[in-house]
């Protein structure tokens, strides 16, 4: 009888103690607003820097002369699991050899279908494409997600071969 009464009260005591331990934790964080980890995203756009390897979207690297390294070999197109990349190539005459040569007409990239798996980047034999760190992709019109990656008037760098 006495034992059960003691048990009854010790249970209450133990329970209240465990509740207070929990309240101590939340109370600690309430009184330490410095530990707040919230990032205020659109406000911190200036300072927000993504990691170098972050996969935001595929871009075709252009240098200052508006030249890229894509030979139109479509290795990336084959490597892509979702049909995100479409390369529309054209025939042109190589000025050095005078032979017909494959050049890209349009490097079409469907951002809406991309799963950012990076397989195209590692498949590219000439390192012509890379993942950019941009991530603000939302648009009001779906067609805007289909991008042509080669800039108008760009041409292939000299010396890049398949």
């Amino acid at each position, binding site marked *: 009888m006495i034992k059960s009464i003691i048990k009854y009260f010790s249970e209450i005591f133990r329970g209240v103690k465990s509740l207070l331990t*929990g*309240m101590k934790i*939340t109370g600690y*964080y309430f009184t330490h*607003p410095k530990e*707040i980890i919230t990032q205020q995203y659109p406000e911190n756009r200036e300072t927000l820097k993504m990691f170098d390897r972050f996969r935001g979207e595929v871009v075709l690297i252009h240098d200052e002369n508006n030249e890229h390294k894509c030979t139109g070999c479509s290795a990336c197109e084959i490597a892509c699991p979702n049909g995100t990349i479409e390369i529309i190539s054209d025939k042109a005459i190589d000025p050095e050899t005078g032979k017909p040569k494959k050049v890209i007409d349009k490097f079409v990239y469907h951002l809406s279908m991309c799963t950012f798996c990076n397989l195209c980047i590692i498949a590219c034999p000439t390192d012509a494409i890379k993942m950019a760190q941009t991530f603000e992709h939302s648009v009001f019109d779906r067609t805007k997600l289909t991008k042509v990656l080669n800039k108008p008037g760009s041409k292939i760098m000299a010396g890049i071969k398949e």
Partner: protein
Amino acid sequence: MNFNIYDFTDFVTSVSNWLNEILSPELAVITGMAIIGIIFLLFIALLGLSLVYIERKVCAFFQQRLGPMRVGFWGTAQTIADIIKLIFKEPLVTKNADKFLFNLAAFIVMIAPLLAIAAVPFAKGLHVLDFDIGIFYVTAVSSIGVTGILLAGWSSNNKYSLIGAMRSGAQIVSYELSVGLSLLTIIILTGSLQLSEIVNSQSDGWWIFKGNIPAVIAFIIFIIASTAESNRGPFDLAEAESEITAGFHTEYSGIKFAFFFLSEYVNLFIIAAIGTTVFFGGWMPLHLGNLTFFNNIMDFIPPLIWFFMKVAALLFLIMWFKWTFPRLRIDQMLTLEWKYLLPLNLMNLMLMSIVSLNGWHF
């Protein structure tokens, strides 16, 4: 008109005299009631808005977040934006719902806190209803709210709502007991149910200090039981979102949902206000023994500020509970009431009687 921030008695009397002068007695009464009604409606709206904001901020800080930050300075206008959104939303009624009861329920839950808030003594003389059965009135009136919850659950024609309503019914019926008994413990000391009397009896010290250990126990029981009565976490079984989606207000939308939401916060305020009045001396300032200088400083702070500060402290405690503890299960909640709180409460009541009889309290 003599406006005194420390004592509103003269001000209130002069306003009522002025009304009687310019109007016939019947009209004066009606106008007076209308004025008070409008003031309370505005007060409740303001209270709801600010409490929702405070709750969101407090919860955010417990969780290492910032909470609303966008609308207005530090998100202060966030709740106003929310209310505007809720007003413009379509009030949906489910197809097979009992439309009359469904609409009625939202008003009943709102009426209960409106009635109860009238009895709260805000400051000296600032008191709408000063019954000699004040405490009894508040406990009685605040349990009307459960009718609204039961109706909402039943009329929604949704099983989740029904489960929520049934839980809520069981919960409130049992926890009423504990709230009433814990308040009774203090009433033994005051000897009066009148709220103004209870406040006046604490002019030389608050009951939580004067009433020895039983008063502290009674306060702990009161805060637990009243949290449960107001359907708040960790006792929010009636709207346990992880179990029964939103419980009794699953099917409500727009402004009717806002009523449920608002009534929760007004109920919260009433609980804190009653707790303050009974245990923490209402609007009475804190006095420490014979430290005259300290007591004078405390007296300088207006009673309204004292009252709201104490209420805020109690509200913070209740919010602290909510954002720390997991929810109880329905049977555990009933076990807590019938096997722990009620026996403890009865024992405490007896203890308090002994203390009171022997004059061991201060």
